[in-house]
């Protein structure tokens, strides 16, 4: 190996099950950065707002590859050489401002950070109105973040520099502090994609909130008031947000789950569904959808008779079992694992 090869792919790592995901990602990155050579033509299809030709309103460009080219370089090349009217937003070009996020072949990426592909479809982010071409309106997101008031209200007076604080206490909050509000996760989130059906704040605003809500210096009262506005239990933990985060923030495990735990503690009524589920499982050793829905929604849930009938015919609900509170053989074990206090807020 020369002193500064810079171009050779990474050596194959020893097989280690725990690092498989990392290794795969590393391999792809190396491959994507190395399989193209100077001057190769990339096929870039960009979704335009004002292109009439073509069913999908995409305009095609052929862009010559430059060493270690990023998607932003390709867009800049297009703007300079082929379509000076192409609208795309970027400021820093180095993964700090978070304004250049787009979708590349169906996946949310930062244009400044992502290596180009030989064949790419570039589209604006989802779940936000498009202003022109790849530029989206950030207002909805900004307003949500502001409404959560993601700042600190101290419950104890400031002790002076440096105040007592350990990194262990900031473990989760410091992950959230890596957020550059690029909204990749907001675009990828299927629950946000449901529109107004839920009151879910969305992953990006929750990460912004977590920066201070998971900070031990913040007053629990303040955190409670913010959490009440998040609709956080609408999150289905599908990990889509975590998958696309360019800052590699473990959004589900280090942001949403700790926030849910805080909400369960500070605003227990928000977590009614989770508590009921836990209690049902602890007592009966299984999930009983009938009981769960009855307990969470009460008698309201009986109003849609056609739906109940349909679920009954398909065997999704078993009213006799529910009424008798029948247990499965796993009930003992479930009770032991979840504890006697299971389900009690």
């Amino acid at each position: 190996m020369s002193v500064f090869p810079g171009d050779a792919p990474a050596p194959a790592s020893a097989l280690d099950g725990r690092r498989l995901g990392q290794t795969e990602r590393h391999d792809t990155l190396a491959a994507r950065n190395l399989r193209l050579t100077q001057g190769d033509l990339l096929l870039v299809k960009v979704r335009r707002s004002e292109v009439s030709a073509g069913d999908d309103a995409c305009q095609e460009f052929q862009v010559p590859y430059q060493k270690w080219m990023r998607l932003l370089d390709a867009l800049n090349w297009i703007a300079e050489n082929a379509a000076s009217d192409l609208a795309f937003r970027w400021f820093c070009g180095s993964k700090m401002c978070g304004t250049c996020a787009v979708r590349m072949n169906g996946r949310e990426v930062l244009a400044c950070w992502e290596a180009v592909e030989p064949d790419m479809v570039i589209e604006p982010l989802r779940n936000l109105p498009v202003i022109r071409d790849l530029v989206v309106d950030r207002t909805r997101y900004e307003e949500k973040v502001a409404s959560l008031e993601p700042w600190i209200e101290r419950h104890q007076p400031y002790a002076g520099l440096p105040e007592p604080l350990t990194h262990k206490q900031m473990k989760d909050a410091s992950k959230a502090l890596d957020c550059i509000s690029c909204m990749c996760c907001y675009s990828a989130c299927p629950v946000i994609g449901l529109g107004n059906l839920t009151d879910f704040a969305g992953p990006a605003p929750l990460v912004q909130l977590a920066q201070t809500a998971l900070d031990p210096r913040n007053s629990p009262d303040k955190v409670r008031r913010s959490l009440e506005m998040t609709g956080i239990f609408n999150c289905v933990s599908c990990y889509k947000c975590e998958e696309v985060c360019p800052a590699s923030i473990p959004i589900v495990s280090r942001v949403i789950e700790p926030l849910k735990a805080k909400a369960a503690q500070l605003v227990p009524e928000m977590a009614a569904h989770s508590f009921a589920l836990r209690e049902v499982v602890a007592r009966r050793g299984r999930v009983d959808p009938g009981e769960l829905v009855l307990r969470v929604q009460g008698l309201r849930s009986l109003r849609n008779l056609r739906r109940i009938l349909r679920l009954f015919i398909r065997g999704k609900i078993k009213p006799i079992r529910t009424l008798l509170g029948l247990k499965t053989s796993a009930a003992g074990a479930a009770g032991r694992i979840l504890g006697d206090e299971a389900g009690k807020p």
Partner: protein
Amino acid sequence: MRVITTDVAVIGGGAAGCYAALDLNKQGIKPLIICKGLVGKSGASLFAGNLVISGRALGNSDENARNTAEFLIKYHNQFLIDQDWAQRCGQWLEKVYYPELEEAGLYIRRDDYGEVVTSPGKIRSIAANVQGNSGVPFMDLRRKQVIRAGIARMEETVATALLSNADGSVGGVFCLNCITGEYTAVMARAVIMATGYSDRLHTRSTGTREMSGDGIAMAWRLGATLLNMEMQWWHTNDLAHPPSWQRMQIYPNPMLGSEKSARMLNSAGDEFFNQQQDDPLAFGPYTVQLKALVKQVRAGRARYDGGYYAGFDKCDAAEVEKYTTYGKTFRQLGLPFPAHMAETAVSSHYRQGGIDVDTNTMRSSIPGLYAAGGVGGHSNGLIGLATYDGRTVAQGVARDIADIKAASVPQQQLEAECSRLERLRSSSGDGPSPGKLKEELRAVMWKNVGVEKNASDLRSALDDIDRIRVKLLPGMKIRNTAKSANYEWLDAIDLMNMIDVCELVIHSSLERKESRGPFLRQDFPLTDNDNWLAANVLKKSGNGLRFEKRPYSLPLFAPGFSRKDNLEVAW
């Protein structure tokens, strides 16, 4: 057209602008922030890698405190700085800045046991969360403070001209919202220019997309005095590829919680810069590094646009990545980290010079116009210094504002600016696009106003710029005439400012007949303290310009020599 009235218009949403607005707001004076990007998410402040500890804060010894002051005056400004201001600034940083930031919630990085993690060395620094990324949470905090205080913001809105009163004072700002295409006149009793220190005038430049010398150009057009416009700083080890990563630096600074740092190799693989050996003061690496590179380039072992390498190959990955983001670029390229070095190149970075201000009030030479942060000519930018400027300007404006009468709306100026912008939007020649012209201008600057300068290159750059202005501009072509999110139009507006600022930089470079720190004249290689320990002051006169020399006083530190080959001077 919308007309908004406020007490103070702040142009720029970085460290200086945000702090000025927050401080004014606290004093009951109504500010409005006009930001070309997003407040706290664009501009230079975002790039702050770490925060230098000044004075006796956080366990600094007397020696650390003295070193920090020496670093600021000598290595960071090559003595072209008001030393009294530097002292006031250092004291404020120590007493107010860090505690205030922490009280507001900034997370200064600790270890698991609660100790604040610092870099070792004679000058120490700390990080907000992670070294290399401190500007992001720092400015995010400012953004939220501004939102929390209910301060009005006009974002993705470019200030295109200053509006003046009959008596010549500044009374407002003409703005264009780049997203909606709407014009707004902001009428204000005072205007604070806080547009930052970097203008992306060269092919390779750090800084963010929207930087194009707007602050300097607007102030100059009204006749503001400028200084030291030639004092351009360079980053010596930014990635050579890809083009958009030209601002991605392989930091040469000491690392938090480690005794090691990056090193640099020439094309033959020989080390030519290692911070521990070549910069024992440990925090003035940019100029020291640049001078080391110049010697390599002259010996044919590197080029300014590549052909040399930087990285952390002598470090342990876990040690580097514990408190820094330095591995991220290598990993994103799929390169083994830290074993591989990356090819690097020079990018133009800060400019020390800018608008001339009274450092007690931040008043410019034009009544009603103030400057704060990197756009000022009184010091090189650092996020702490810019913040202190924000504080000083807020005090200065508060002192003056009661005596300033609200201006009447200057209809004629509004109409003239509207028609100028409309003409640009309908540029329908058969020549190049504004984006292409920007690149051409940057290429001229890179080629003839680069790291090493001389009179004949500088004059030829002036000719080239003249050609762009006279031959190419009239034929400029804009494809899209839409008003909304029309970045082509924005490029055209930027281009006008860039051309003006480039010329000022070149004239100033011709005027300073010496070499000093990062300013290298091949035809004047000596650092000349006899004649040039002075501000190179640029004044508008009639249709032209004239220069004046203004010596600096040296109450704290002095160079200690008269004339010496700049490449042999430590700073």
